């Protein structure tokens, strides 16, 4: 059964994660994706190399694609893109703003050759505004957007700690890009019209903190405005990052303290467990499983006021009680008891071991691929399932310059033309490499 994007052709000039991951998802849905690289290759090829120009990260974020090398500084290389684009449906790029224009592969230039093109540009800060020109990376978007300070993590030197080893803004931007491309294809199917789509890491990071970033005067007067004036006061007197966090943290900890009793981690006698309760019934399930008596924990009682005097002590007392119970038995036993009570809880798994997890195997999340240079590999597969148009991880990532000739010939170049382009340096790797 073909995928939902069967027959759709995608050309991408992408690097690192946000752009490449969008291409992976379009490929999973059945699109034919061709990645264009310079002779130096996507910078991701060099992050943790396993053999020259091949890294695990590159393999993960470029599976499903064919690869070609074009020299876009060379007018003949640029002409290749302009000729290929006439047969493509979608173009993806994540470069710094201004780079597409300089290389002649911006929306206006390419739509001249393909009027109904769907063109997606992802940047760090978006196409306009005072920071549009600045260099970006996921960690920059984490810091700029407030995600990092929002997590209130401080390293041993008093500096901000990364919120996570993974790259949330990159992933959200990749997903939003793929959503927009699909929506634009739907629009094109209904109207015949193509368009330009803009996504940014900043917008991706803002989405992740939705309610925290929003403003609602009725609610904010009580909770948010005091935080803002506290921050301003610390800034005024030249306080440190830690001081600023302190000004922000107090009230939030007070309000959220009871919630995080049942939405957070505890040690068990042989490891750790994570609770994920979001509703009062969930919390009652946990209390039942732990054997807490009515009265032990008043935080869900109608008259409990998180902002009242003494509430912090109550939360601390309940936390100590919960900690003590969890420490008295093994993770396996607690997970079984909590499961039986219907409560949301999980052991804390190690990422490198997930490939062997029975649930992951039952869902078929991991897929086996064969890389032309480095052999067999098992990757995280498509992000969702579709009943009529199944997703499929189509192939492993391309070696640098792996499919240049094949693609050119498929799109109407003759053997002689390809040889000429190659010897002039417009396509392919320099001959000494």
């Amino acid at each position, binding site marked *: 059964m073909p995928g939902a994007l069967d027959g759709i052709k995608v050309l991408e000039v992408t690097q690192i994660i946000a752009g490449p991951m969008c291409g992976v*998802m379009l490929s999973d849905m059945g699109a034919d994706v061709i990645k264009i690289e310079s002779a130096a290759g996507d910078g991701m090829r*060099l*992050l943790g190399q396993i053999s020259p120009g091949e890294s695990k990260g590159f393999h993960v974020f470029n599976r499903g694609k064919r690869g070609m090398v074009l020299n876009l500084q060379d007018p003949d290389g640029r002409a290749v893109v302009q000729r290929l684009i006439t047969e493509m449906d979608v173009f993806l790029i994540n470069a710094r703003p201004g780079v597409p224009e300089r290389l002649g592969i911006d929306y206006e230039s390419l739509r001249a050759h393909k009027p109904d093109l769907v063109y997606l540009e992802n940047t760090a800060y978006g196409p306009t*505004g*005072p*920071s*549009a020109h*600045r*260099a970006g*990376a996921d960690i920059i978007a984490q*810091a700029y*957007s*407030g995600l*990092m300070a929002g997590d*209130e993590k401080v390293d041993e*030197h008093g*500096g*901000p700690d990364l919120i*996570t*080893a*993974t790259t*949330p803004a990159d992933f959200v931007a990749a*997903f939003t890009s793929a*959503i927009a491309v*699909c*929506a634009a*294809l739907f629009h094109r199917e209904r109207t015949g019209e193509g368009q330009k*789509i803009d996504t940014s890491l900043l917008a991706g990071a*803002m989405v992740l903190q*939705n*309610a925290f970033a929003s403003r*609602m*005067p009725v*609610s904010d007067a*009580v909770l948010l405005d005091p935080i803002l004036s506290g921050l301003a006061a610390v800034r005024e007197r030249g*306080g440190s990052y830690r001081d*600023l966090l302190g000004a922000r943290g107090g009230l939030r900890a007070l309000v959220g303290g009871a919630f995080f009793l049942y*939405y*957070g*981690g*505890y*040690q068990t006698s042989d*490891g750790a467990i994570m609770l994920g309760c979001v509703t*009062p019934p969930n919390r009652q399930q946990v209390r039942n499983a732990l054997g807490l008596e009515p009265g032990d924990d008043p935080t869900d009682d109608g008259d409990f006021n998180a902002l009242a005097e003494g509430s912090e002590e109550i939360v601390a007392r309940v936390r100590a009680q919960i900690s003590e119970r969890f420490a008295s038995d093994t993770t396996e036993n607690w997970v079984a008891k909590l499961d039986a009570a219907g409560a*949301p809880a999980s052991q804390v*798994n190690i990422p*490198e071991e*997930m*490939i062997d997890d*029975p*649930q992951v195997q*039952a869902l078929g999340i*991991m897929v086996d691929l064969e890389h032309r240079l480095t052999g067999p*590999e*098992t990757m*995280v597969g498509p992000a*969702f399932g*579709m*009943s009529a*148009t199944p997703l499929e991880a189509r192939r492993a990532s391309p070696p640098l310059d792996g499919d240049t000739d094949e693609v050119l010939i498929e799109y109407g170049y003759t053997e002689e033309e390809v040889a000429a382009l190659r010897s002039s340096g417009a396509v392919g790797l320099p001959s000494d490499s």
Partner: protein
Amino acid sequence: MPGPLDRIKVLELTQIIAGPYCGVALADLGAEVVKLESPEGDAARKIGQFAPGESKAFHGLNRGKRGLVLNLASPDGRAVAHRLIRDFDVFVTNVRPGVAERIGVDYETLRQFRPDLIYFDVTGFGERGPSSHRAGSDAMVQAYSGLVAGDLKVAPNGAPEQITATAPSDYIAALGGAMGVCAALYHRERTGEGQRISTSLLGAGLALQAPWAADVPVSDSILIEPLRRMMSEMRESGASYAEMIEARRSRPTQGKAFRIYYSGYPVRDGAIILGALTPQNRDQIRTALGITDDPIDDDDFNAIGPEADAVVARVEAQIRSKLASGTMAEWMARLDAAGAPASPVNWLEDMADDPQVVAMNLMRSIDHPLTGPERHVGPLVEMSETETGTDRSAPPLDSETDAILLEHGFEEPEIVRLRASGAIGAASST
């Protein structure tokens, strides 16, 4: 200018984040989204209430929708859903596995009334496998999927810490669903065929750590296999969570040299983040900071060699003391001038008024019928020919039930009768 999903009608039975945010994404793309709630309402209404049944989280995760209250436990309520679904293109749900079947809103039931329906469901652990029946929420899937241990975060008391205050698996699952719905609409437009799309928070959590969860034997024999062995030996010997995390943290990796230019540092009046990905980026930072004796990017530097840790520590200390000696404004000016990737660590409470956020129109003003003016994080993407974004707030509970039913062919007396029987509408005491 209408959005790309103009005239598409979406009915959702959703709660908390993963289902509701999918609906927001579809509404931002121009779809008309109707949220179906039980008489008690989505539980997110009660997380941080500031008016009865109204919370900031609910408003942020349900803007752009109209609201309808149905009691799906009653046969009459179910019949209303089955009559409505004929007029809808898409159904979105994130109830626990088995619940949709029990209340008659599973794919097989609904497609009988609307054969080309596009149906999206997200569960914690998916529909097959030993954990499929388990309750799921973002924090536990962070733990189950390896995100928590991968981040090496341990609380002072030795317990694991959530990786972030936000809910990454929920959002990724929501976005995956919106992508699947858009692709399925495209497929339906070409073939007339509807379908079911499903995903899980577990799948979303793994997608977020694709490089670590992947298995590439050529690479793993050096770095990952020894780690797996070490973890399993420690488990057998009864090591604590904190000990296992510490062992994991201190193993040799290629990442330590990378991390010193991809990390946060205090400055005199706050903190700065460096985000270098390439040797060129690292050179830009060295230029801005005046660092001249860093061998990390030299061809003969061995990141997992015996001397590496000492070299990395020396360079890190140098970066740290330079940055600590100046202010945010001074260092940002120098780093920007060198073209280096760096950012001040901002406060998200300030972000609604940040000049870049304002310039990009990322926050949108919306008026809520009960609680007044609000500003929300706006649409995910900008599109040149099809507008994105919405000016509709989250629905108060039961605010539009009657209007929606009238639009879909129900008569006044029928609505009165359904309301009296409790098949529709919020419980009369509220």
